[in-house]
């Protein structure tokens, strides 16, 4: 790619990024560096490192990040490998179901977990029923073992990210290489270690990077477990402090710094050594059909992971139909009344329409920007493109609330971003851009992985034959990375629909509420607020599930059948 074009694209994307991400972030973080009488100071930053509580919080956050990432890899990688290599009973459905954690709605997900794992929840009720627990002394699962609970829940929520990225990477592998190794007598483990693993490193890295940074900064899960000795919760607490404490902002800066450093270091260790495939796979993919016995075992493993990962979803579904749910396996007096009341509520239908509009808009924006920037990172020789790569990951590390308040402040009448909301105070454009900025990392990572694995010589061949740059991109490059883009876009859309912080702070008028804010509003209804919110949550889950299945079908036809449904 000509460097001029690269520089142009970079400049455009950086401009977008600066205005819509760096600007609000810096605006919101200035409190961390503002000295008492005005002026600049590092005292608060140093204060973070001198405070043993914050240090412990950072250490715990690191451990949670690494633990969640490792566990997610341990769950996702074998599943992806199995899905890639074998055919087993129910593979088509299981391959989609395994992605269920993606569609968990916020707020009610946490409530659902507590209904199941609480002291008087379903799980204990089942154990008591089977005589495995003393009814007068039920175990407090959520109260004890909180650290491991957080890691487990993170891993179960985030493994689909790794699963999709690894699967996309595996689909690019030329089976000829593995077959050649097999013919030469290489044992399966060696084959895996020396051929498969290195070839799908980009996919593993892209997924792992997202999972690590997400877990490192995750707020919701530690809150479910009331695990407070961790940076994200300390920041959340601090921001809402009535004394307008600058320390949390300093802590945010430290977290962003750590995320960036870890990302850059691990990228240099793992991702740059990607081995590129030589052209399209030369033999057909060799999915082996397993014997019924072995096939059933694999299916059972998929199914169990699915069930465990779906504990929150099951909780939400049961809650939405419950009259009272206390100390029993299933709710007593189940009822559909909450659905009736919830769906006739004036907030609900508009919120669904709004979310669709915002989510689709953001995903489209992300696809355009993400592909362009991935191009620059992988195909150009522009200096500083690795820093650009790290920059694109930043939105994952900055806590939602901070960015949301930055956007709010900057979109007031008279402030720089006012044009986005205009006189009618419609936050649609602002929300689309806010969602897009936050989801950009998924699409960038996916596109980068795709480009790293596609063979540039195919594009060069096309150019030699006289194709224009646009033609090459349209007919050669994009189809080749189509699968990866589909993976990134699906993730971006799903998470945009379920986005919390921006939705809460920026959508101020009921007619503009997205689904997440409608759920939050319904939660506060006296009496059956949780059940009502759960009903809307179930609706969101079903809708997203259908959307994802539809997306898979689409991507399947155009992307060499990885997500074949």
């Amino acid at each position, binding site marked *: 790619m000509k460097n001029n074009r690269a520089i142009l694209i970079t400049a455009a994307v950086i401009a977008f990024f600066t205005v819509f991400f760096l600007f609000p972030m810096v605006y919101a973080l200035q409190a961390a560096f503002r000295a008492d009488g005005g002026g600049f100071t590092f005292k608060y930053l140093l204060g973070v490192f001198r405070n043993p509580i914050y240090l412990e919080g950072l250490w715990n956050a690191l451990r949670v990040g690494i633990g969640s990432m490792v566990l997610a890899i341990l769950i996702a990688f074998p599943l992806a490998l199995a899905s890639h290599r074998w055919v087993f009973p129910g593979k088509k459905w299981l391959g989609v179901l395994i992605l269920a954690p993606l569609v968990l709605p916020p707020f009610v997900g946490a409530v659902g977990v*507590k209904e199941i794992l*609480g002291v008087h929840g379903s799980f204990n009720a089942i154990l008591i029923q089977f005589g495995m627990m003393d009814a007068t002394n039920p175990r407090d699962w959520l109260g004890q073992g909180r650290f491991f609970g957080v890691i487990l829940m993170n891993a179960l929520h985030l493994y689909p990210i790794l699963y999709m990225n690894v699967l996309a990477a595996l689909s690019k592998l030329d089976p000829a290489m593995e077959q050649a190794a097999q013919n030469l007598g290489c044992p399966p483990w060696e084959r895996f270690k020396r051929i498969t693993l290195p070839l799908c490193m980009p996919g593993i890295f892209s997924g792992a990077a997202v999972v690590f940074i997400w877990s490192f900064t995750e707020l919701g899960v530690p809150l479910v477990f009331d695990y407070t000795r961790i940076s994200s919760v300390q920041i959340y607490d601090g921001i809402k402090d009535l004394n307008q404490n600058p320390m949390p902002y300093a802590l945010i800066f430290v977290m962003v710094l750590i995320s960036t450093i870890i990302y850059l270091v691990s990228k240099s260790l793992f991702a740059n050594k990607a081995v590129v495939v030589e052209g399209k796979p030369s033999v057909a993919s060799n999915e082996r059909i397993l014997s019924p016995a072995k096939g059933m075992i694999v299916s059972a493993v998929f199914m169990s992971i699915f069930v465990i990962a779906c504990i929150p979803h099951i909780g939400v579904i049961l809650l939405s139909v419950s009259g009272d749910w206390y100390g029993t396996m299933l709710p007593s007096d189940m009822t559909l009344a909450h659905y009736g009341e919830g769906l006739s509520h004036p907030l609900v239908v508009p919120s669904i329409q709004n979310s669709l509009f915002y989510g689709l808009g953001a995903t489209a924006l992300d696809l355009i920007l993400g592909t362009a920037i991935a191009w620059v990172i992988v195909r150009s020789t522009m200096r500083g493109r690795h820093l650009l790569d790290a920059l694109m990951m930043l939105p994952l590390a900055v806590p939602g609330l901070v960015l949301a308040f930055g956007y709010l402040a900057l979109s007031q009448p008279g402030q720089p971003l006012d044009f986005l909301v205009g006189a009618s105070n419609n936050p649609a454009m602002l929300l689309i851009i806010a969602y897009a900025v936050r989801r950009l990392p998924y699409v960038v990572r996916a596109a980068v992985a795709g480009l790293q694995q596609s063979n540039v010589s195919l594009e060069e061949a096309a150019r030699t034959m006289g194709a224009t740059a646009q033609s090459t991109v349209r007919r050669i490059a994009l189809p080749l990375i189509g699968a990866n883009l589909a993976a990134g876009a699906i993730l971006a859309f799903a998470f945009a629909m379920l986005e919390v912080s921006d939705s809460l702070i920026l959508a101020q008028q009921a007619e503009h509420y997205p689904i997440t804010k409608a759920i939050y509003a319904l939660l506060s209804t*006296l009496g059956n607020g949780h059940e009502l919110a759960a009903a809307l949550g179930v609706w969101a889950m079903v809708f997203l599930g259908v959307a994802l299945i539809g997306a898979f079908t689409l991507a399947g036809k155009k992307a060499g059948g990885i997500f074949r449904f």
Partner: protein
Amino acid sequence: MLKRTGAIKSWTSDRRLTVMTPHNETIQRELGAAFIDYWEKKTGESLYIDWRVPGGSNEIRMVLDSLYQAADKRVADGDGDGGIGVDVLFGGGQLFFEQEQQKGRLVELNVFAEQVDLFANSSIPASFTGEPFYDDEKQWVGVCLSQFGIVYNEDGLRAIGVEAPKTWDDLADPAYFGKLALADPTKSGSVAKAFEMLVQQKMHDRLKNIQQQPGEPMDKAIARTKREGWTDGIRLIQKIAANARYFTDSATKIPHDVAQGDAVAGICIDFYGRTYNQRFMQPDGSSRVGWVAPVGGTSLSVDPVAVLRGAAEPELAQEFVSFLMSERGQLLWNGQPGSSIGTNKRALRRLPVRRDLYIPENLAQFTDPEAMPFENSGDFVYDPELTQNVFGSLRFIIRVMCMDSHDELKSAWKSLIDADFPVRAMAIFNDVSEVSYEKAQHEIKRAIESGSKIDLVEQSIRKGTVFRVNFSKVKNMADKGR
């Protein structure tokens, strides 16, 4: 499948009122519907109420700060009238309204002149149990009453073998270890008030029988007694915090966790307690969730309403306030749904501020006729002299001693319980001299008011370390039986 309602849309109504509120969705719907109905009957105009709900009073404070900062900047640039596009501020606690009033964001309310009698004859008293019910400068007025109390789960109490709690002291019982759901005083002024009440009660108890030491002048004795009362209060808070499962800023989390049995008891506001109590009420009148106002330990305060500076619809806003103070508006707070004075669908379970409405005809249609707040709350009178000037210090102390060091506090308390409270370890645990009444009034207060955030940070690191070291010491000694 998805029914459309006949709700008024913002683009079809004649007028529009913008209200910022932390009140729950039920209050918004019921009161909103009633006011819209009233306005249509009065003027024939259809009305759309634009409810802005950024979150709790904390989020609203941040949003207002942000919005007014931009508005003031516009005014300085010669553009705009200082308005932020919001007409009414409704709910968030009396402390929050006092703060907003001091920032000059509220305007004088017409209701004081329109309904002079209400205020003159103490249908709405100027203050009660030491709490102001409306603003001296007439810029906010209390709409409904609230009290903090203890919510508990009957099954849970049985499981841990204690009676229903009646006073704050009961929550320090070691049986509650790991089972109390507490609210975070650094996030909410009302919650901080509840803790302040606790300390005041201890000080009142001591002051009721002052023990003058030989040769000690009375004023010195009083001062010493106050200090001792403060220390009692801090020690009680420490034990309650040690029993706590968490400190949350989500007000609804506490009654919900107690109802679900994940906590046995917690501190929460009256109407949540009552709502959950009723929700699980059996035909025989018993319920697994109960709520009680601690005897002699809590005051009655109000949840106000005000009109914001620069409102786009100032007259409409004033009418909304007047409606809330009218008989119709007031009775909605506790009227039974479907009754002549009540709401449409759901009960709000809150108590009106107007004393003159607690008459038999109305009480017959109340959901909580036995609450009788004015009769039942008189035995605690909030004395601002005792603790008002150290209110900020108390919040700081709770954060540093109880919340930041919560893990260490819990470990120490557990070890003490297991070792049956050995004397020497207990002495160290009870050493709260770092946060004495003196220190609260001087050292800590100075750090908070100096405006130097870095000094405050230094203080909290220093004091936090002292406590954490002490708690480790306590744990070690208790583990060894000393």
